[in-house]
């Protein structure tokens, strides 16, 4: 029985599949996106927490915020520096980062995550009439 051809074909297909990302990128660079800061954000300099922490944990923070606001009626967040913020995605975060497309979406798209926040929270105050 001679099935070497079939096996080699199978191996080639397998390798092609396994190395698919290499073919797909074709050496095209796609560096880490940099979120664009609005002038307002630039001016504020600091976010609620430091940038690295926020970058990694903002989803958790928003989750804690929503429970605090909705369930406990607590709306003020005092950060590590003792500074107070209104815990609101719509009114605090998006007020400063009013450019969702350049700020939020860039990374979200890059990492292919689509949080359902935007189903309710109005995404871009500047764009919505």
């Amino acid at each position, binding site marked *: 029985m001679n099935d070497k051809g079939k096996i080699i074909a199978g191996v080639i297909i397998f390798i092609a599949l396994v190395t698919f990302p290499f073919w797909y990128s074709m050496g095209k660079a796609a560096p880490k996106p940099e979120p664009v800061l609005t002038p307002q954000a630039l001016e504020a300099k600091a976010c609620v*927490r430091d940038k690295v922490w926020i970058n990694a944990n903002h989803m958790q923070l928003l989750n*804690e*915020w*929503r429970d*605090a606001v*909705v*369930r*406990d*009626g*607590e*709306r*003020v*967040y*005092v*950060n*590590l520096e*003792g500074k107070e913020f*209104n*815990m609101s995605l*719509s*009114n605090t975060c998006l007020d400063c980062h009013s450019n969702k497309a350049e700020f939020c979406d860039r990374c979200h798209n890059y990492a292919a995550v689509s949080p*359902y926040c935007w*189903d*309710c*929270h*109005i995404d871009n*105050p500047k764009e*919505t009439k």
Partner: protein
Amino acid sequence: MEDSRRNFLKMAGIAALGAGASPVLNAFAAGGGPAATPKTMKGKDILWAKQWGLVIDTRKLTTAEDLKPLIDACHKTHNVPFIDPAIVGHNRHEIKWLWQTGYANAFPDLEARYTHEEVETRPFLVLCNHCENPPCVRACPTKATFKRPDGIVAMDFHRCIGCRFCMAACPFGARSFNYRDPRPFLAETNLAFPTRTKGVVEKCNFCVERLADGLLPACVEASNGALVFGDLEDPASEIREVLRTNYTIRRKVALGTGPAVYYIV
């Protein structure tokens, strides 16, 4: 570096001890981290009560035109859509927090065969009664509807699974369900307040977001004094004064839910 070493210790802790190691983790976390931790708290301006209540002086609101600004104020503030039956072909998807109805509908058990003529035609403002003993809270299987310490029957739209048990439980028909995406039906949007997603129940929230900022509910503000809002448990409050000095009725008291909305007829 600091952070990553801590993370490593955490990871090693979990790996070694399994999920039960959380106290150990906390110890690690507390030991290595900065002393201060962020806090959450109520705002300084917040209006707070033991049981918020509302008195509606229906004598001052005798026509539909009188009610409209109140309803509009509420619905605009909260992005309550108007799903026009003329457009969608039916009224099944209607959403309303505050609306008007007839005396006999609002008070079916107080219906009189021979009624005061003016009252019979007077429009009545109805809304969630923020009951003292709310059946909807009892029914909700996820605690998405709950009673806050200030007596407001609140809804957590993030947690609502859309089972509509609360709608069946509410004897006042105060609740609406988002049978579809409400956004296309918003004539204008209040950016400060979220819209809802399809598939969740909603109702009047006694303007918790305004109370937090020290403001009275939108309808009260728009009512020119026809609506009085205050703490039912505070004998010194204005609302108690109004209740002391006026005869009021509540809807379906026989059911024992203890509505917090009173009507001066």
